[in-house]
């Protein structure tokens, strides 16, 4: 009996070790971007479409190019604190390599080889194309260096066990597109919505593990902070015209001429800097959801 128990617990330990090894943080291949040249001007477009500033700028700042972090995000799993992603080599990401940056965006893996929490929307950025990763990196390096230390997250057990995120990723992280895109405009719209814009991160409800509920994709969700509701974008929840959606993303004004508040105000502040064609592509793709 005792021997059986010993074997069983050894097996358990071995099983956990195997699971951790199988779900260890992934990194991109070091030669993957060797043939690509970063373009900071193009990278700025990626930066605005990706909405980096919405989370990483300072709490009380209007400066979307200063990214010292510090904003706090209350969720059912605890409170996440956005880290410093300025170009400061000590406190920010100034001493990262392109490959480390790409591993963070595409696999949610830190330069130290840890899993990032999916409050960082690598679940969407995983769909980014390589040239955009390289261009974004070129642009990020032009941003000011800000020497503020990143604050720790405040999470409850078991969510504070980072290594368990490997299993989470195996369940919820993928780079496949959710919807087909029949035209070049819809394809661009899909890229902006599903990859860079990471719309689904807020507009789709999550299950008890924090994974996106595929069956209710873009149908709207309770606000993670507890109060209020994030509206759905599918046609049954949103009857705005393509032009209404594009105008809202440009100016923040709804068809009733109310204006965006809440987190969406931050989204308009960044998406509003894209070209009219890009905003129209987003609107067309949103309108094509079903």
């Amino acid at each position, binding site marked *: 009996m005792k021997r059986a128990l010993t074997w069983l617990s050894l097996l358990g330990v071995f099983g956990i070790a195997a699971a951790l090894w199988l779900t260890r943080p992934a990194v991109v291949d070091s030669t993957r971007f060797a043939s690509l040249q970063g373009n900071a001007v193009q990278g700025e477009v990626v930066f605005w479409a990706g909405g980096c500033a919405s989370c990483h700028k300072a709490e009380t700042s209007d400066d979307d190019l200063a990214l010292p972090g510090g904003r706090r995000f209350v969720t059912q799993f605890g409170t996440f604190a956005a880290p410093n992603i300025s170009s400061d080599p000590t406190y920010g990401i100034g001493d990262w390599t392109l490959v480390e940056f790409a591993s963070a965006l595409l696999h949610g893996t830190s330069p130290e080889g840890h899993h990032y929490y999916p409050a960082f929307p690598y679940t969407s950025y995983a769909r980014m194309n390589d040239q955009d990763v390289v261009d974004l990196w070129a642009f990020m390096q032009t941003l000011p260096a800000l020497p503020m230390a990143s604050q720790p997250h405040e999470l409850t057990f078991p969510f504070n066990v980072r290594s368990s995120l490997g299993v989470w990723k195996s369940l919820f992280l993928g780079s496949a597109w959710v919807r087909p895109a029949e035209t070049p405009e819809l394809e661009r719209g899909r890229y902006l919505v599903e990859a860079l814009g990471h719309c689904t991160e807020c507009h789709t409800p999550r299950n008890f593990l924090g994974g996106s509920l595929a069956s209710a994709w873009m149908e709207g969700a309770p606000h993670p902070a507890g109060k209020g509701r994030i509206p759905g974008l599918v046609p049954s929840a949103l009857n705005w015209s393509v032009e209404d959606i594009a105008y809202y993303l440009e100016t923040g*004004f709804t068809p009733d001429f109310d204006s965006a508040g809440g987190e969406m105000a931050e989204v308009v502040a960044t998406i509003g800097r894209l070209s009219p064609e890009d905003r129209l592509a987003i609107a067309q793709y949103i309108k094509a959801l079903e």
Partner: protein
Amino acid sequence: MNFTKQFALVVAALTLAGVTLAHAGGHDGNPAATARQAHMKLYAFNLDVIGAMAKGEVDYDAVAAQAAASNLLALAMMKQNAYWAPGTSTAELGNATRALPSIWEDGSRLDDIGVQLIEAARQLASAAGEGQDELRGAIRGVGGTCSACHRSFRQR
């Protein structure tokens, strides 16, 4: 009592009743909150006029666009301190307002955003009569200040 006098009395009584009713009606909610919401509705009405032109839903009309943009600037410049009165936030009025208590906290950026709105409305007012593209180009600045304030100070 002659007829004229009787008529005057009736008119006076009806007027008084009307004034009383109107007065009571105006005090349905908190008067400061009601005034703020009315101010917002005037913004929205004028934004609707220029927004419909910017989107191409109606033909661009330089005179109407200019009038609406000038109204927005006039609204933005109004002295509103009396109806942004302390003690009229969600903490005191509950559902009668969405104005968060942080508006009245020390270091609130409300006044700064108000100044930015006036500047953005001024640019809109000078662009609105110049053409559809100029009009559309200037709306985002106004929208940005609306959202900046709502983001920080309006209950979700």
